[in-house]
């Protein structure tokens, strides 16, 4: 994607509260899902509220695809209701005095310009057609959140902001909604900013990641490159790992395994239902990767990839290090002990074998 100022979201914000400062300067892609990722208190929700114009104390500049939404230095501030955005709050926030249908209509009928997203499409996308005449108190948590998402979409927003829309839901509801979010990702042509503190959620949905800690941007970039970086604060490295996009290549009926191919090689996972050619994302945690100098014989580990050491960095404990590897174009991270590092004489440029004990499939 070509990045020009008129196709991106440029956001420079400062929010100063007692005991907390948000200070960011970002350029976000004008389409795809951007995850604002960080621990609680990192400022990700505050940043999202700044984008929406909801944060009273948010000072700065916001230029959305060439339109200036906010520039406090020049006295420009477009109030929230004049910004063409949709916002999904952490808890569903449906209007309790209105039916589902009237909730959906609330924003829609206040939009003057043509409807790029039809109401029917939003209803179909979120699978809520059978709920239209109910009142919010007769919906489950997952249903409410789906209605809230549809309500935001029905305004045909040019920017969709989502604040941990799954956080208040249990695992079952989450798995109920995630497919809908993936459909959004695939079908909508508008940029989405998605706040999350869960690496798996980010890895599954995001194209672009902004990593926040204590109100500052620690890293920002494409999903794979950013998650594979080693120079991130220790708070993130305990969960370090990489995301790999692969294609279902072969089903092994005898051993009930499926082979996934990706640019750096291939791995076997427990048998999947997806047809050959289907695209999958999976995550390899650094703690699940060990290193060997030779291709190990007599091991139970199935997945072995040849790789080259590209970077060595401190890990979250003094006993461990993180080793970044290049497996023929695909980055990997291994978390090994410092003792092993010395024993195996792991140095930059060394060729060795990465042994992958487990992968987490994200679909």
């Amino acid at each position, binding site marked *: 994607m070509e990045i020009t100022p008129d196709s991106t979201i440029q956001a420079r914000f400062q929010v100063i509260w007692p005991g907390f400062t948000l200070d960011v300067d970002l350029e976000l892609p004008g389409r795809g899902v951007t995850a604002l990722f960080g621990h609680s208190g990192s400022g990700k929700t505050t940043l999202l509220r700044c984008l929406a114009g909801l944060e009273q104390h948010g000072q700065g500049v916001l230029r959305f695809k060439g339109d200036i939404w906010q520039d406090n230095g020049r006295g420009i501030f477009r109030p929230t*209701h*004049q910004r063409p955005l*949709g*916002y999904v709050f952490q808890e569903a926030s449906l209007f309790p005095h209105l039916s589902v249908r009237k909730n959906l209509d*609330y*924003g829609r009928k206040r939009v003057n310009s043509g409807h790029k997203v039809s109401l029917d499409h939003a209803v179909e996308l979120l699978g809520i057609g059978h709920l239209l005449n109910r009142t919010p108190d007769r919906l489950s948590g997952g249903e409410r959140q789906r209605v809230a998402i549809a309500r935001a979409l029905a305004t045909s927003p040019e920017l969709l902001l989502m604040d941990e829309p799954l956080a208040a839901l249990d695992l079952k509801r989450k798995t109920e909604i995630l497919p809908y979010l993936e459909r959004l990702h695939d079908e909508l042509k508008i940029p989405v900013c998605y706040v999350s503190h869960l690496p798996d959620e980010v890895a599954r949905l995001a194209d672009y990641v902004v990593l926040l800690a204590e109100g500052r941007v620690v890293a920002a970039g494409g999903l794979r490159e950013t998650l594979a970086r080693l120079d991130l604060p220790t708070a993130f490295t305990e969960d370090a790992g990489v995301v790999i996009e692969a294609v279902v290549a072969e089903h092994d009926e005898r051993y009930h395994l499926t082979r996934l191919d990706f640019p750096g090689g291939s791995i076997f996972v427990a048998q999947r239902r997806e047809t050959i050619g289907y695209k999958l994302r999976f995550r390899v945690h650094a703690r699940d990767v060990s290193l060997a100098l030779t291709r190990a014989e007599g091991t139970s580990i199935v997945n072995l990839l040849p790789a080259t050491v590209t970077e060595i960095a401190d890990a979250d404990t003094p006993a461990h290090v993180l080793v970044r590897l290049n497996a023929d174009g695909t980055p990997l991270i291994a978390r090994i002990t410092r003792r092993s590092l010395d024993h195996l004489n792991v140095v930059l440029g060394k060729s060795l074998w990465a042994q992958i004990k487990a992968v987490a499939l994200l679909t």
Partner: protein
Amino acid sequence: MLSDVDLAAVWLTLKLATITTMILLIVGTPIAWWLARTGSKWKGVIGAVVALPLVLPPTVLGFYLLIALGPHGPVGQLTQFLGWGVLPFTFAGLVVASVFYSMPFVVQPLQQAFEAIGSRPLEVAATLRASPWDAFFTVVLPLAKPGFITAAILGFAHTVGEFGVVLMIGGNIPEKTRVVSVQIYDHVEALEYAEAHLLAGGMLLFSFFVLLALYSRKGAHTWK
């Protein structure tokens, strides 16, 4: 049954309570809204002023209103300057006094309702393109409806029951300022206990049924 004089007092009381309640809903809503939403250092001061009639003896409030509204008082000077004359001993004066006296009974339920709603529904409405005014009428008012009903009932009932303030600035003029509570007082003072019982008993029943209606009302929508 009730004499013409008593009936006139009942009618006047209902008129006073109705007008006072309507004014209070109009005046009290922005005050309650401000109190519920502001972070201003003046919040405590304004809140305390509004609540004063809850703790002040009505005669104190009545005495100060008599002075303030009187020809030498600041309000009296203003009303005279505007050509309205002075307010004590007039129905308008009673309305003004009742508005002050019943203010906390309207403002506080509204403030509580607004506080319970919080800022989230307004933020949601804003992200759905509703301007602040739009959001107030389409979201806040419907959600605060139980608070408005409570406020109206309490404001009305409290105005009906008002006595000390009316006594102080009313001047007990038939059909202008002689309300039921004053009429009861007159009957008691004149040892006309039968007439007093009729009015007082009616007032007791009225107050009981108002409060019964208030306390047995079901809670409406809650914001989740």
